[in-house]
């Protein structure tokens, strides 16, 4: 199925969990936070949050800014 990940189309397996997607992305020890369709998904729910087709997933981090 197709999702929109940080603004780009990405094909992932049907019924994927957020934790599956994050594992594929190999974000390692980086600090990040995730929202799906403009709703925050807390870290504690990554393993149970099931993704749906056309979900808009944003993975964010801290960057330099004023």
């Amino acid at each position, binding site marked *: 199925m197709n999702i929109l990940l*940080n603004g780009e189309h990405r094909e992932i397996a049907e019924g994927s969990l957020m934790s599956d997607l994050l594992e594929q992305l190999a974000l390692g020890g980086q*600090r990040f936070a995730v*929202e799906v369709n403009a709703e925050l998904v807390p870290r504690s729910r990554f393993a149970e949050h099931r993704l749906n087709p056309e979900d808009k997933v944003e993975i964010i*981090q*801290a960057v*330099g*800014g*004023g």
Partner: protein
Amino acid sequence: MSQDNQITDPLLIAGREYRSRLLVGTGKYKDMDETSRAIEASGAEIVTVAVRRTNLGQNPGEPNILDVLPPDRYTILPNTAGCYDAETAVRTCKLARELLDGHTLVKLEVLGDEKTLFPDIMATLKAAEELVKDGFDVMVYTNDDPIVARELESMGCVAVMPLAAPIGSGLGIRNPLNILTIVENAKVPVLVDAGVGTASHAAEAMELGCDGVLMNTAIAAARNPVLMASAMRKGIEAGREAFLAGRMQAKRFASASSPIEGLFFR
């Protein structure tokens, strides 16, 4: 930030004491090394960061700003820069809180237009209300309007941060009397945020009685950012001490400093 020994004249924000009254942004630097050297030289304990998309699949070893400025050493102040409505500002704060393990201190800015980067006050009030209700400690960027500042304080913002001049302009304090009125009215810390260009501007803000100054471009866009960071640190300290000392009354005409009495030639 060190709580081990007593801080004289601390800056108190959301129940925490700070030694430094200079808050700095972390944008626009040449690289991470320059960022960390400038921030070290500034003596700042509170540093702002922005929240943006992670670069997926690109250079995973690339240092992150939080590696350079570890949250156990600095108070990280995530901002909502780039938000033009209340909803995205609130979303950004929620992401930042998750990113920083439940950290509730945020810098709220909701912008009105790209040319001036002046705050959209209606949207700022709306976002502030929602964030305060949700348990955030909100430091809020606003214009130099005392009425708006008073309203933001009464809503429960932990600090009110009027601009000196447009963000990134370096023009200095355009309306010192309004800043003074805001300071006189406020019970929460007032910090000048944005528009400072050089050390004398920072000193002026502190002489007006501001509790601190938040800046980024004035340091990052200097020819020598590390040296400017040090100058700003001193400007803030000098201005604060001058404010506490209570300046002399200005007079129109001269007043000799040496005694008139005992002159031997008349």
